[in-house]
């Protein structure tokens, strides 16, 4: 019995030490990426290429998801608000839900599963096939040349994707509420315009999506760079990217929301 408890404690201890060690290693990696980011801006073409891969190629999933989320919000909002005789406020509901929460959060989750996993797999495979070592042996710093542009490409793409997600969601809500359910178009837009504040709502949403972009991209790049150079290692790292960054997005969202909208 004693040995069972001792074993369990040892196991927990190992997990904690490994977790702390890995967190420290990831933080060091993140700081290195920031320090060695000069190339990403000096040769901005490298970053633009990554914006294309991370951002432009994610557009389809972001736009389609945004449209459907907006349409669902329109349906649900209309159904609820109609009971209180304020169906015109559905525009406000759709816009605030999207700009404040759903836009940044859902697009970050989609970004993690589409672009984040691709980044991890690409860098993990580059490591497994010795391309990273080859770069290093050619006197080209892999962090500056490979990781930096991908990091900034992801960070720049994320707020733009979140904005497009929200815009598409608002359009979806309009289609359902105005075109399908007959809410007055003028009331829909004017109520939305009156209640959505540029600084409190839109800017806070942009800040959120920027922070999510940093978190998701950093996690994806670290997992790829740290992946064991085997097929199993790369697949495990890709899974960890999606799981860890999704949890990180939700946790960070809670903290940011508490600070931004409740003034904690």
């Amino acid at each position: 019995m004693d040995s069972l408890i001792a074993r369990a404690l040892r196991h927990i201890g190992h997990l904690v030490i490994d977790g702390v060690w890995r967190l420290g290693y990831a933080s060091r990696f993140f700081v290195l990426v920031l320090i060695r980011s000069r190339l990403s801006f000096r040769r901005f073409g490298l970053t633009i290429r990554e914006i294309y891969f991370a951002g432009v190629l994610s557009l389809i999933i972001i736009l389609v998801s945004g449209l459907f989320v907006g349409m669902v919000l329109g349906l649900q909002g209309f159904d609820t608000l109609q009971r209180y005789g304020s169906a015109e406020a559905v525009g406000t509901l759709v816009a605030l839900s999207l700009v404040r929460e759903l836009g940044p959060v859902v697009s970050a989750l989609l970004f993690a599963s589409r672009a984040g996993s691709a980044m991890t797999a690409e860098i993990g495979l580059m490591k497994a096939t010795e391309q990273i070592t080859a770069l290093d042996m050619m006197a080209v710093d892999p962090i500056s040349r490979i990781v930096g542009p991908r990091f900034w490409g992801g960070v720049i793409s994320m707020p733009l994707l979140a904005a497009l997600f929200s815009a598409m969601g608002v359009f979806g809500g309009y289609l359902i509420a105005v075109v399908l359910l007959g809410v007055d178009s003028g009331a829909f837009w004017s109520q939305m315009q009156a209640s959505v504040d540029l600084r409190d709502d839109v800017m806070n949403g942009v800040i959120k999506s920027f922070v999510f972009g940093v978190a998701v991209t950093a996690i994806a790049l670290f997992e790829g760079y740290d992946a064991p150079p085997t097929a199993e290692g790369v697949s495990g790292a890709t899974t960890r990217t999606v799981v860890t960054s999704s949890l990180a997005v939700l946790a960070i969202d809670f903290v940011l929301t508490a600070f931004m909208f409740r003034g904690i």
Partner: protein
Amino acid sequence: MQVPCDDICRMEHAGGETEPAEAVRIRRRINSNVETVAQNLVEIEDVEFRYDVRPVLKGINMQFPRGKVVSIMGLSGCGKTTTLKLIGGQLRATRGRVRVNGQLLHDLDQAGLYRLRRRMGMLFQFGALFTDMSVYDNVAFQLREHTDLSERIIRDLVLMKLNAVGLRGAHALMPSELSGGMARRVALARAIALDPALIMYDEPFAGLDPISLGVIGNLIRRLNDALGATSIVVTHDVQESLKIVDYVYFMSEGVVVAEGTPQEIMSSNEDYVRQFVHGEMDGPVPFHYGGVPYVQDLRLNVAHG
């Protein structure tokens, strides 16, 4: 190459005084070091290396003279790739010195190491070509990263390097469209893009058909001579490498067990070398993996027949 008398030395001579013994000793030591550096591009002195507590290299000494092709041979896990990584600065020796072109590797920071690596080329076991770039862009990569040459000159240089490995016509292909031998040749063209002084080959013959094997072997020799470079070939392909190298180091379990010219190696009577060169089944490297006696494993009672 001798270090000329410095100013102090000249003053002493002018004054008619004899050179102090200490000064002579220091000058001789400097001259001997300079001579060694002049002769050897790479020197490994009493190097030990361990992964955590597991020793991989146990005090090895090697010299790689300029202009020569030197091979490091041995079984898998004997420490030959680790030696190559130490020379390339990917690993740092636990003890001892690794000098490349007179520079001690463990004294160099990242910038210094990168400056040195611009004069090195490395061919990886499976090429390590950048899979998102064409053959042309792979070979042009270092030229674009490290020089300010115009695209027109880069184009000429890339086509010249590809022509040297016989793949000028394949410049538009992607790495996924190449055979193993072709990928290795493109990687070789990439490795020599900046005309390096030192070219390192990590298992260049692994997994190649006989024709590709011969082609790569010939290219290693011809490119080394044409560039006036020094080549280090880590391999366990005895027959192919003995045709092209000037000197061989044999390693086993982290130590150099034999060395010599290909002729000396071929006629060596040392058990390990003979078994390795002639591919004998049993010898210092046993056929059977260690374990309990066979009879005991089969649960036979010998005493009772």
